[in-house]
């Protein structure tokens, strides 16, 4: 394993300190915790948004803390949900009377840990609501699985619910908007090469030189199947095809697109992928209101990408285009 780190035990701590050192105007670390909060938190009279998860998805989630998006992000160990006490610290550090909305990605551990934190906060009479993002169409949503995973579509939830909260909306309203995003956002990813968790020291799975994994999760979990590598266009056809099969996006609809890099994918390849996404949507007469291309929800050093589509209505579009100023997402 070759990694630019100082020691496997310091990865999260040093990453958080480096991130807050880079962006002191936006974020600061809540002392004694793995929580990153807006600089000068608790000064605004608004519903607070808290998200988080395992580390290794940078710039998620700390990079989305700032005006118009999150109020705090909780970092767990690499690919491991943060613990309830840490999530509770994030709530305590930011909540100012209007309640907190927890934005959770749908993983067994994340849901359990965030729910335990919500129970702890409820004991202190803090009003906490939660939404669970489950946008990954690679996982069949049935009673026979844990349900769909939350992946890159989560960033749209942060953006849109964050803009809603910034207007001074009540907790119920912010939650409702977040749930509308969740109902209309779908994603699917693929991997060209695996990632290596620092503490493990070897790749999370193995792919032959000419093989790719379709339907990969953001923690190196194996996907739905393997196949021989094909062109960027054919790969996009597979991913977007599966997303369109959901039947949510039809002719005349307006969508936001995210082409998300998994961490080790050159931006040139992401742009090439985006070109095919646009061609498909043009053919289907689905209008693109906004496109984001970049590394938004990564998986350490994995190479590959995911595509996310979000169907917009006037309300969601308004919040999507509202200002945001965070380390990793800016909207003027």
């Amino acid at each position, binding site marked *: 394993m070759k990694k630019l780190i100082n020691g496997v035990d310091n990865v999260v701590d040093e990453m958080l300190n480096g991130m807050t050192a880079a962006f002191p105007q936006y974020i600061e670390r809540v002392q004694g915790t793995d929580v990153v909060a807006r600089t000068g938190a608790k000064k605004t009279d608004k519903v607070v948004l808290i998200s988080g998860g395992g580390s290794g998805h940078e710039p998620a989630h700390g990079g989305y803390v700032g005006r118009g998006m999150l109020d705090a992000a909780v970092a*767990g*160990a690499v*690919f491991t949900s943060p613990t*309830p006490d840490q999530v509770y610290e994030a709530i305590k550090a930011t909540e100012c009377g209007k309640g907190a909305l927890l934005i959770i990605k749908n993983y067994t*551990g994340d849901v359990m840990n965030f729910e335990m934190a919500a129970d702890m906060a409820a004991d202190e009479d803090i009003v906490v609501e939660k939404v669970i993002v489950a946008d990954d169409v690679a996982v069949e949503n049935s009673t026979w699985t844990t349900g769909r995973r939350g992946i890159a579509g989560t960033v749209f939830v942060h953006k849109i619910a964050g803009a809603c909260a910034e207007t001074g909306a009540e907790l119920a309203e912010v939650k409702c908007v977040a749930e509308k995003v969740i109902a209309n956002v779908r994603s699917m990813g693929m991997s060209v090469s695996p990632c290596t968790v620092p503490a493990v020291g070897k790749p999370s799975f193995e792919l032959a030189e000419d093989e790719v994994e379709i339907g990969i999760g953001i923690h190196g979990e194996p996907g739905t199947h393997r196949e021989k590598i094909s062109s960027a266009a054919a790969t996009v056809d597979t991913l977007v095809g599966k997303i369109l099969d959901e039947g949510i996006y039809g002719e005349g609809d307006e969508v936001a697109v995210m082409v998300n890099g998994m961490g080790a994918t050159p931006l040139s390849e992401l742009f090439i992928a985006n070109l095919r996404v646009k061609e498909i949507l043009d053919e289907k007469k689905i209008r693109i209101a906004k496109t984001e291309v970049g590394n938004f929800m990564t998986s350490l050093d994995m190479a590959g990408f995911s595509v996310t589509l979000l169907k917009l209505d006037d309300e969601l579009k308004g919040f999507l285009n509202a200002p945001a100023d965070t380390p990793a997402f800016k909207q003027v």
Partner: protein
Amino acid sequence: MASKVYGCIAKIADSIIANKEFLTELDREIGDADHGINMARGYTEALGQLPQDETDIGAVLKKTGMVLISKVGGASGPLYGTAYMKAAKAAAGKTELTVQDGKEILEAIIGGIKQRGKAERGEKTMLDAIIPAYEAYAAAADGGKDLAGCLDAMCAAAKEGVEYTKTIRATKGRASYLGDRSIGHQDPGATSSLLTMEAVRGFVEEG
């Protein structure tokens, strides 16, 4: 001098820490390759924080649960943490455990894990080791076996339970994303549960 209950937790911790890589490797096959790392981190912390001379079994179990909840993360932290907290409630104020106490503790543990994990038997989880273990323990207890005999029966059933997880597909946890591809692999959580039970048995046998 360290209390018996501390000695027992230390024995569990040693086993989990010694099997850190084995558990992580099992998790790498069907999960996200962190089970052993997370559990070892939690138990290492527990060893440091637990009061060595505390004889109240409930108090030590409760503290262990709290440390695991705050240090393990993932799904295992809340699940094992909850298991210890429930066991603590069942053992509150006790300094010795009877065969009957053991049965009640296992019942409480199963109730807690089912509630927190929203899982049932047959979903390729730790419950597939713990529920048959409880049944075997209870049957041995009802048959008049002593504590060592009950723990033997418990561990044998838990081992069979771990073997059983190889034959079924996961419907809970990250392994459920794999569908049928999870068949053939033994569940890491069921395995760490077996290690825990075997450590308890080993501790009792050594007296």
